[in-house]
């Protein structure tokens, strides 16, 4: 934020020089690298989150990350480690509770209380760490400053491990997500799969939090894959499409945040939400228009985003 205020960097309407100027700062290059890693990982894990309707679990895990990050800062460790430690621990705890993470039912008062208490703990750590009150916004709403080389390596290693595990369990997980009872009847370990997936979700949430902050993880974890799933019913298309949307949203958000005084969390959420709304509108138009043609949902109308746009036009 202070960079733009100092007048060091003004948008010149020449994209080539603008990007050159922006990438002449090592922290900006790191932010783009980290953003790419995080966007791809979040879209991959988020694809299953949307499919399994576990958005509420993602929200809870992200809230848990806030006291983790502020606690890490309080004891003098990089906030990234705090996110990982708390999000992964919370994922294990949620996985142990039967029926938790769904967001409805009688325990909603309990979940609400636990969320508020964890946020209050984070606030306590921030208050105890004197002179850091401005930093609370960065932890809650994201920041692209302060991502070092070591952090990028850590993010990349975690992302590779998570993606490898996801690739290994992808097929049975997809089956178990779409039809848990049939999957269980075919002797698939449905319960173990959901535990593994929650741990992967914890890692992905911890990564996404480092760009979007604890409160805006939806922007990378849920919105891009949800947009992609609206545009295509086929997994082979919507999975990479979600990664592409996530990457575009993150890099555009970082660029916009660099050239304006506004925080990166605002831009990433706005771009991601705009993509989601456009996709919904395109889908509605496609179904309304294509009602006479091939039936929607069979894969014939929505193969690629271009197909949807053509159908809408």
């Amino acid at each position, binding site marked *: 934020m202070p960079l733009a205020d100092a007048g060091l960097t003004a948008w010149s309407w020449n994209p080539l020089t603008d990007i050159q100027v922006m990438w002449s700062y090592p922290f900006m290059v790191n932010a783009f690298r980290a953003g790419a890693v995080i966007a791809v990982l979040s879209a991959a894990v988020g694809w299953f989150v949307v499919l399994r309707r576990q958005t509420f679990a993602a929200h809870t895990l992200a809230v848990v990350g806030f006291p983790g990050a502020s606690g890490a800062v309080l004891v003098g460790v990089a906030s990234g480690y705090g996110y990982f430690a708390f999000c992964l621990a919370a994922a294990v705890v949620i996985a142990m509770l039967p029926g938790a993470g769904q967001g409805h039912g009688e325990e909603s008062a309990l979940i609400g209380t636990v*969320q508020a208490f964890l946020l209050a703990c984070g606030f306590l750590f921030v208050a105890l760490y004197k002179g850091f009150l401005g930093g609370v916004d960065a932890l809650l709403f994201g920041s692209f400053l302060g991502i070092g080389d070591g952090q990028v390596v850590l993010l990349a290693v975690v992302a590779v491990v998570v993606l490898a595990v996801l690739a290994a369990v992808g097929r049975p997980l997809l089956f178990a997500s779409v039809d848990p009872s049939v999957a269980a009847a075919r002797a698939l370990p449905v319960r173990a799969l959901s535990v593994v997936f929650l741990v992967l979700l914890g890692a992905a949430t911890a990564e996404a939090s480092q760009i979007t902050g604890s409160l805006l993880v939806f922007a990378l974890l849920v919105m891009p894959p949800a947009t992609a799933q609206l545009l295509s019913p086929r997994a082979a298309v919507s999975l990479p499409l979600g990664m592409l949307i996530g990457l575009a949203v993150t890099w555009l958000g970082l660029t916009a945040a660099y050239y304006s005084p506004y925080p990166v969390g605002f831009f990433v959420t706005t771009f991601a939400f705009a993509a989601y709304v456009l996709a919904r509108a395109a889908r509605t138009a496609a179904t309304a228009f294509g009602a006479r043609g091939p039936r929607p949902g069979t894969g014939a109308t929505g193969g690629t985003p271009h197909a949807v746009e053509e159908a809408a036009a």
Partner: protein
Amino acid sequence: MIAALSHPFFLHAVLAGTAIAAAAGLTGYFLVLRAQIFTGDALSHTAFTGALAALAVGWDLRIGLFAATVGVALLLGFLGSRSKADDVAIGSAFAWILGLGVFFLTLYTTHRSTSDGNAGVSVLFGSIFGLSASAAWIAVAVAAGVCVALLVLARPLLFASLDEAVAAARGVPVRLLGLAFLVLVGACAAEATQAVGSLLLLGLLAAPAGAAQRLTDSPFRALALSALLAVGEMWTGLAVGYAVPGVPPSFAIMAAATLVFAATFLIRRPDTGTAAVTATA
């Protein structure tokens, strides 16, 4: 502790806090009973954005707070009965609203020369020790109004919450009651934001109500207990926040509320919660 009351800021905090806690305890009980506790979550997002939007255009923070929370509560009321919207759409919309709040926060802190840099933090986590005398009295008046309105509505609202179909058949205006209740929740959320902040108001609504529901089966006793617990937790939190340096009062209030709720899980009861509540009503 008596000496603390000689400080005007502490006196204002106790006055406003008591009224806000009582209102939050009463509304929270109905929210839990009607399984609408996540309305509180939605309101906490909009309260933040509303307050900062008002600050950014130079209005009083409370105008934005009340407009946002009551408006969204009404919107949720109208949407809720019509269709079951999916969690992805709702979650995305509220995440974006929160992102918009950050935009207003930056707009406020960078473009208004008279602004204080901690406006975002005090909206998110409350600043009950910073209330002026007039702000405290307005808070007391609004919270008392919410309490009175809820007590007037309590009987039909309880009926409509426990068995909507039968209540509607008996001529209770179920839909109107639901909307009126959501408006009261909105007003209560706007008040609670000034005490514990928009991020923590969910806890103030949920914890005392959840504890009261675990402790007693009678709805009216639970309603009173929820309000009493909320007030007690508020006083404890304020006292701890005053006595222990470095501990923010909103954390102390949340910690007291969470401890009480956690303690209720240690008490074994012969029968389980909601089924018994339905049976007695």
